[in-house]
């Protein structure tokens, strides 16, 4: 299959040990043009700018960070709705970053995406049955027992009544529509689902139902997730590992207990200090909030991108970009991109 599709084999891939997905040095720049006829390019938005991450088989990796830092762009690159400007995306050891449409076809079924907005991501003129069956149709897959039986099974799997096969999206509530989107993503037995803010638009109670559903799917069907969300408590609940992103790059990544319990990047400290907990005893104090607005992704700061808002910044931070590196004293796999990493107290007292 590989030769036919032209997807390259990774020379050093060791079967069984390679992660399901491995992203290295990923870059996506969007050109910014002047208005009018000339449409001259006047700059570029560095939406994703040298991003590294890996997701293991059946693992859930959370991706968090400020609005506009490039989370959705990352998700769209991995599902190849976008083509990267540079860098590599390896899926099961095969480079897919620049694979053509035809080359991607067999992989498309294995990497699915769930979107934030259950309203706009479903075609209002199609029945739920047709929506869920579409991926099988496009990929000409005929499951044993037929497509219709498969769709009914999927609807049941996500907690919808199979009798609703002939209904239209507008007849469903937000949470039910999100379930339809999930059923569609499951149709081709995916191995990786990129979920971009899958519960952000939902009421807390419906949100809990959908989180529980995704979690049972992850465990029972061994599906890996890249789970993008801005609710840090939901991410912690859902993801075994968490990556923190700032202006197009990962600045800290570790298992969930380390990120939430022992974070070492000043931006992670800032982010966690801003969370509002539903408990007046733990109510957010006024702590390490960043000062002012984020820098423009058109012209990110030199060196460390967080330096313009970092309470610990030193001259070195403007000169050299800190690499995302494992810190010897921290848990295995806990990597931080900072010249002066340390526990949260350090960042807070630097204010």
């Amino acid at each position, binding site marked *: 299959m590989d030769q036919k599709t032209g997807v390259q084999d990774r020379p050093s891939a060791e079967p069984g040990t390679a992660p399901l997905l491995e992203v290295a040095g990923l870059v996506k720049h969007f050109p910014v043009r002047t208005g009018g006829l000339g449409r001259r390019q006047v700059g570029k938005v560095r939406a994703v700018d040298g991003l590294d991450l890996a997701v293991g088989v059946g693992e859930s990796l959370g991706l968090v960070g*400020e*609005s*506009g830092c490039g989370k959705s762009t990352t998700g769209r690159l991995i599902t190849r709705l976008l083509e990267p400007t540079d860098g590599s995306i390896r899926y099961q050891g095969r480079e897919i970053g620049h694979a053509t449409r035809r080359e991607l076809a067999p992989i498309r079924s294995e990497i699915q995406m769930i979107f934030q907005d259950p309203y706009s991501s479903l075609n209002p003129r199609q029945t739920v049955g047709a929506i869920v069956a579409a991926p099988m149709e496009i990929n000409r897959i005929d499951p044993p027992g037929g497509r219709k039986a498969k769709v009914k099974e999927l609807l049941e799997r996500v907690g919808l009544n199979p009798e609703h096969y002939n209904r239209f999206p507008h007849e469903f*509530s*937000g949470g039910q529509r999100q379930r339809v989107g999930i059923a569609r993503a499951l149709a081709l037995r995916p191995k990786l689902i990129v979920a971009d803010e899958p519960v952000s638009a939902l*009421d*807390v*109670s*419906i*949100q*809990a*139902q959908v*989180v*529980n559903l995704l*979690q*049972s799917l992850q465990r029972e069907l061994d599906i890996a997730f890249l789970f993008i969300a*801005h609710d*840090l*408590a*939901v991410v*912690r*609940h859902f993801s075994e590992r968490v990556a923190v992103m700032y202006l197009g790059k990962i600045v800290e990544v570790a298992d*969930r207990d380390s990120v*939430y319990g022992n974070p070492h990047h000043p931006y992670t400290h*800032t*982010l*966690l*200090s*801003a*969370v*509002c*907990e*539903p*408990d*007046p*005893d*733990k*109510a*957010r104090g*006024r702590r390490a*909030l*960043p000062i*002012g*607005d*984020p820098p423009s992704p058109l012209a990110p700061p030199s060196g460390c991108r967080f330096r313009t808002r970092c309470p610990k910044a030193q001259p070195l931070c403007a000169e050299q970009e800190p690499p995302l590196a494992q810190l010897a004293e921290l848990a295995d796999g806990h990597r931080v991109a900072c010249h002066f990493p340390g526990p949260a107290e350090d960042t807070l007292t630097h204010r």
Partner: protein
Amino acid sequence: MPDTPDGAGVLLPKQVAPDSASVPAPDAAILSVRDLTVRFRTEDGVVKAVDGLSFDLARGSTLGIVGESGSGKSVTALSVLGLHNPERTELGGTIRFDGTELIGAPRRTLNRLRGRRISMIFQDALAALSPFYTVGEQIAETYREHMGASRKEAKARAVEMLGRVGIPNPNRRADDYPHHFSGGMRQRAMIAMALVCDPDLLIADEPTTALDVTVQAQILDLIADLQAETGTAIIFITHDLGVIASTVHDVLVMYAGRCVERGTVREVLKDPRHPYTWGLLSSVPELSGSVDLPLRPVRGTPPSLLNPPPGCPFHPRCDYVARVPEHACSLDRPPLELVAGRGSACHLATADKTRIFADEVRPLLG
């Protein structure tokens, strides 16, 4: 001065005499809502969006309104602002703002209050700001219209307000259009516009829901600072219990157009007395709780507002129906009995509520 809520017998039977000491003195309440009903005529029938809601808001205090999607939070806010289309809406009960009755008040009265003494901020700042005028012009125009200030005064006031909400270089940024601002800055600009006339009441409907946590934290701090300076009373509508915990004094929990629980933020979040509030708390993961247990959402679906369930509107989804004798949950509407501003509309005995929460619900939260 607001009337005693005599027409509100079902909802507030005990508030009239014994607890009158706990009801804020009428002159302290800037807003007093009694037995508010809001009904919409639709093709499918009459939607009972708000169904007998009463509350008082003291000057300078903050009331949080929480509840699931469709429970009537925004409809309540729009009623206070007089923004419902009278052709399709039936309003009942009373809404008194600083002694003036708003229900049935002439357009002119409402227009004069709105923007000047009562103002509102929304989730979507872009929709509230015009793309065709600079941010400074829009704030200045609001000030001129309501305060009769000169152009020059109004411009100066707009710049001052932008500075107060933390926009750097306000003098220069006042000349920018909204699309030049980031999401967080637009939200600040909208707050500046809402507060330019020093209103007595600010209604904030999900003002931070679309923002990420760091910007949200800045906006919440900003609102708290401005309130401390100006003494504006605030109604803060959200479905985020975390925002409630760090922002408001008192909480009103809404379900199916009614208040089901009322109390201080500490009372409602630490010692909740209504099964729906328990459900809300169980639905949200905590930042430090166990990650091994699944979340515990309220089961079932929101009630129909065309044909609300009889008895307690929560009964089709409630796990405690069997603990109330004689099928009262499906037969009788539980009244909201307030003692010192605290109470819940549920047939369970108070001792049972406290015990069930402590023994059965609390241990399962994070």
